[in-house]
């Protein structure tokens, strides 16, 4: 795979393939990141409490025995550890002068996320959250179409996302560490809803947890009110072990409707024995390259463009910013507060974006939206 930049270059930047990248963590999502980095041709080093040797062997990477050892030899750190450790790992990387890609949620709390933003600014380094759904072609195309006015003014949006309860790592079931299904899973759609329908002014959420046969199950609903008048329903499920990972959206505006359902999408139909319990934790892409590759290519191109931070209007700034990542955490936190109190929670993400020094939502380049899709 060539390391072709995602957007036309004004002047030839250093190639992303020249980057030295350190992956911290070697669990579930590291298995999607490692091949993407390798596809870009970078030098990859892995450090993890567990699993580093196997992951390195599978993807032609080296193992670093400690975080310090890894930080010494890389330009970029990719944080794929459990959510509650993002703050410490990413802060250490930024303090060492490394750029950071941090898996979503960018931190466990909004306050931790804001601290990370400060750390990135102090270090003059780039920091991005792994909101990979912005790189799934179906979501990117939908967003581009909405911005082009294809459905008119967005009115009522629905997003659903769900799969089996993530029992493969114990920290997911601990709300203190993961924030539960809202912070861990639904944050994808909370971010997409804001990206598509605009800044958020109110959040209401409910969540139901039931243990059955010794297994946890959780279903949550979040309803967002947007500043522009749209309303959004986001539903998240960590369900029974056989649950096939599935995502869908239905975006209705005053001039049309766009919808997608991963069940039945894509150019491959199979009739095979059922996936055993403990199977997939994320959907196979409906079409085209891995969205993790699309995402990592875009971040790598930005990292390669400058040794320091990029302004939001830089032509190589990725489609998602650290401020977007922090605001997504704050929306999820508002949902958790609503679940705890049983009442809706007011917030003003437009003001938060300004306070956090972010760019307005519509400032990004629309032509990024479908990068990497074959459509």
């Amino acid at each position, binding site marked *: 795979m060539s390391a072709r930049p995602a957007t036309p270059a004004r002047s030839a930047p250093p190639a992303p393939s020249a980057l030295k990248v350190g992956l911290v963590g070697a669990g579930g999502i590291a298995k999607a990141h490692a091949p993407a980095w390798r596809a870009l041709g970078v030098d990859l080093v892995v450090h993890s409490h567990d699993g580093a040797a196997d992951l390195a062997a599978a993807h032609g990477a080296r193992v670093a025995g400690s975080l310090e050892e890894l930080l010494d030899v890389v330009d970029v750190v990719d944080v794929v550890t459990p959510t509650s450790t993002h703050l410490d790992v990413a802060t250490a990387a930024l303090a060492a002068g490394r750029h950071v890609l941090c898996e979503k949620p960018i931190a466990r709390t909004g306050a931790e996320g804001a601290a990370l933003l400060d750390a990135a600014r102090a270090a003059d380094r780039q920091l991005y959250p792994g909101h990979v759904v912005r790189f799934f072609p179906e979501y990117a195309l939908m967003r581009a179409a909405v911005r082009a006015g294809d459905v008119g003014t*967005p009115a*009522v949006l629905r997003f659903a996302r769900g799969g089996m309860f993530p029992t493969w790592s114990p920290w997911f079931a601990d709300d203190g560490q993961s924030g539960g299904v809202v912070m861990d899973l639904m944050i994808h759609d909370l971010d997409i809803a804001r990206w598509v329908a605009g800044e958020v002014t109110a959040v209401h959420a409910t969540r*139901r947890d039931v243990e059955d046969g010794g297994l946890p*199950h959780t*279903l949550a*609903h979040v*309803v967002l009110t947007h500043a522009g008048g749209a309303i959004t329903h986001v539903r998240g499920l960590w*369900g029974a072990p056989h649950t096939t990972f599935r995502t869908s959206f239905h975006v209705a505006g005053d001039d049309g409707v766009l919808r997608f359902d991963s069940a039945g999408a894509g150019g491959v139909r199979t009739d095979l024995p059922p996936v055993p319990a403990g199977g997939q934790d994320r959907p196979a892409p409906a079409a085209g390259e891995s969205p993790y590759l699309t995402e990592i290519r875009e971040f790598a191109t930005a990292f390669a463009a400058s040794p320091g931070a990029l302004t939001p209007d830089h032509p190589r700034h990725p489609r998602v910013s650290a401020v977007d990542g922090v605001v997504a955490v704050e929306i999820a936190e508002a949902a958790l507060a609503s679940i705890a109190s049983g*009442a809706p929670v007011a917030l003003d993400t437009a003001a938060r974006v300004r306070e956090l020094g972010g760019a307005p939502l519509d400032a990004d380049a629309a032509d990024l939206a479908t990068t990497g899709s074959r459509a």
Partner: protein
Amino acid sequence: MNSTTQPAVVPSADATPDATPDEAPLRVAVLSFAHVHAASYVRLLRDRPDVELITADPDAATSPADEVRGRPFAEQLGAPYVDTYAEAFAWGPDVVIVCSENARHRDVVLAAAEAGAHVLCEKPLATRVDDAEAMIAACDAAGVQLMTAYPVRFSPEFATLRGLVDAGALGTVLGGTGTNNGKVPAGRAWFTDPELAGGGALADHVVHVADLLDALLGEDAVAVRAVTNRVLHGDDPRVRAETGGLVSITYAGGAEVTVDCSWSVPDGAPTWGGLTLQVVGTGGTVEIDPFGARVDGLVAGGTQQAWLGFGANLDALMLEHFLDCVRTGATPGPDGRTGLRTLRVVAAAQESVATGGAVVRLAS
């Protein structure tokens, strides 16, 4: 219609033989053509040997001039017509089917009860909770049945879902998502008049899903929260109520359900809309799409989408059940109390909207 095609959702519906020839035909009065379903009911009833039909639509004069109602509409349908409800009641109907504007259900149902006729009333049962209570009280006092017209309850898809839930296949129900999206109602202007309709999309589209959940869970809604907007058809002066809405409902056993009741189907869509219900339990997920069975494609040189729906005729199944119950003396369902419970959900949703999105607790 053979009774074996009845969904097994209503206990009184099974093993009821069709009317025998020596039984006197049932006298059925379809009162008002305000609701678009009136035409469907008339077509189903007019040719049946076991039914004598009469129709009346005295409020036709209050409707816009471009809407065909009253005697001309009855003539189009080939149905006998009288000018006033009084004449219809004097004819001695066994049964009335109330298709007036939502806000006018109460008066017609009270008159029907006084006349001793059983009632099938269009949904929502009323526009106000106290109207629905008065209708139930009047029918109880008169000893007549009151049924609320929720045809989706009779869909084979819902029967399958209910069977799976009842058999425990879903385990403990965690909740789900319901959608009842349609085009903005056209052809009958009162649907978008909040005075006559009782609201907009909330009043029109929440009750069907609420009824299915009522039957499925057998539990009361205990908390309701709703948000609405008028982005869809926002510049249409005839639309004077909410066109988009999301309603969050908590049931007594803890199930959490969200309903999208929006009139979000574009005018150019190949079908009016539909209803879906996804139910999530610890055993898995089941979702139904009772209006989804279709042949689709492109026609007219590719300029139009085809939608050849072939789902069951739910109006027919519902009427069959109601008439069976009237003949046998069984209690038809969904009854008036179901209509009232589901109306309470709508009223709570409207209160939530009026209070800026507060969570409204329902007294049980």
